[in-house]
C-alpha cells in the first residue's frame, strides 16, 4: 500500500491507500473516481487521461510510443499528461499526486 493523492474533475482532493502492482487507472476505477477507461487499459481509448504532479514527473518516467500518440491528439494535453492505465503503481510512488483530466 502507498498513498495516492487525487484531484477529481470537480477539483476535490482526496487521498487513498493505493494498491501496488496494478495500474493507477485500476486504482482510480476501484475507488470510484469518475474516469471512463473504456478500453480497460489496452492503450486504445485515451479515456483514462491524468496529469502528474510536476514534482513526480521524473520519477514516473516517460510515456510509451502508443500512449504518446494518443495523448498528443487530445485537446487538453499538457506536458505532464499521462494515460493512467500505462503507469503501474509501485511502493516508491507513495505520495504521488495526480489530477484527473477533463472528459473530452
Amino acid at each position, binding site marked *: 500500500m502507498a498513498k495516492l493523492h487525487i484531484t477529481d474533475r470537480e477539483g476535490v482532493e482526496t487521498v487513498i491507500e493505493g494498491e501496488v502492482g496494478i495500474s493507477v487507472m485500476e486504482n482510480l476505477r476501484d475507488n470510484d473516481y469518475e474516469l471512463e477507461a473504456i478500453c480497460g487499459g489496452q492503450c486504445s481509448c485515451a479515456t483514462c487521461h491524468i496529469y502528474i504532479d510536476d514534482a513526480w514527473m521524473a520519477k514516473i518516467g516517460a510515456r510509451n510510443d502508443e500512449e504518446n500518440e*494518443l495523448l498528443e491528439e487530445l485537446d487538453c494535453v499538457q506536458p505532464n499528461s499521462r494515460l493512467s492505465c500505462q503507469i503501474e503503481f509501485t511502493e516508491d510512488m507513495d505520495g504521488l499526486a495526480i489530477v484527473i483530466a477533463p472528459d473530452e
Partner: protein
Amino acid sequence: MTQTFIVVGAGHAGGQAVATLRSKGFDGRIILIGDERYVPYERPPLSKAVLAGELEVERTFLKKETWYPEKNIEFRPNTLVTKLDRKARTISTASGEVLGYDKLLLATGTRVRKLQAPGADLDNIFYLRALDDTLAIQRKMTPGTNVVIVGGGYIGLEVAAVAVKMGCTVTVLEGLERVMSRVVAPEVSAFYHHVHTDAGVVIKTGMAVTGFEGDGKVERVTCADDSVFAADLVVIGVGVLPNVELAAEGDLAVDNGIVVDEYGQTSDDNIWAAGDCTNHPNALLGRRLRLESVQNAVDQAKTAANAMCGELKPYSEIPWFWSDQYDLKLQIVGLSEPGDEVVIRGNPAERKFSALYLRHGKFVAINAINMIKDFMAAKKLIAEGKILDPDKAADAEIALKDM
C-alpha cells in the same frame, strides 16, 4: 419511502449502470442480477490477454467483489431472471423468487448464435462469450493442438492470433468471401488475411461448415465442398443475438433489440434498457441501430442511469471499437457501408495504415491500423461530419486533424 431499482444483467452495461446510480446519489435499494458467477467484468480481454494467460481474471472485473456490499448494492450472481410482470412491477427468477421494482433496467446483452449442424454438441466445441468459456478454451489450447475456428470475424481472428502464438495448429473457416467483412473494407480484409497467413494460420474463405464428427469429442470438421479438417478443439464465432425474450414476453416494444429512446427508456415509463440488447436512436448517425461495443454499453448505461435519477441527457456518440491481433492495434470509428468510397493512407506493408470511408465526400468511418493519431483525429472529424478531399486524405504526410 425508499425506492428499489433493479438491474437485470450483470455485464458491462449493468456494472456501469449501478456505479453511475450510486455516484449520482441514488440511495435507495439497488439489486443487480446476473446469471453468471462473476461480478461484472470486461469481455474484450476474453479473446485477447485473458485467453493468452497474460491477464488475471480478477483484473477484468469492473469493480472488486467487495465494492458491491460496500456500496450497499445487492448483487445476485447465478440468478436467471425469467419473467417480467409490468402491471405488478415485478420480476421473477428461475428459482421462483419474485422481486418488486420501482424502476427497472434491462442490460441483458447478447448470446452467441449457435451453429445448427450435426455433431455441434460434441465435446471440445466451444463458443466464446463469457469468462468461463475463455477458461475452458484456454485449458485445451496446448501446443500442437489442432484448433479449427469457425467464423473469421474479429473474435475468431483474435482467438486465431492467440492460438498460433501458443503453438497450436490453426485453421479459420469463414463462410463469406473475406474475413471481417462485416466491419472492414476489402483492402483491410486482405491485409489481415496476409498477416494471419504469415503467422502460420490457414484461412479458408467461402467455406460452409456442414458438421462435426468424432467419438464423443470432436475430431473432424466437414464442409459443403467435401473438405475435412482435423480438429482437437473447435471455437465457433458466428455472431450474436440480442437477449430480448424477457422484454418481449413483458410486452415491451422489441425490434432487433429492445426499442429505447435517446434516454434509454423503453415503451414503459418505469423501464430502461442499455447496451448490446438495445435498438436505439443516434442523432449523429441519423438512424436507429443496435451495437455490440463497450463504448456503447458504457455510454448508454450512463445515460439510462442518469435518466432513472431524473437527469435527461440524450445519448448520441459516434460508435467506436478496437481489436488487437498480434502487434496490430485496429481502431474503428463510425459505421461504414458497402457503397462507401475507401481511401487508404499509410503503408499496409509497414503494418501502419488507415482505411477512410467517405460517403458522398463526407468522412463517416475509419479503420486505423497502428495509426493511433488517425483514430483520435477521426473521432472528432466524423462527429463533425467533415467533408474530405480523397486525394489529400490519402496523403499520410498530412495529419488527419489538419484536413
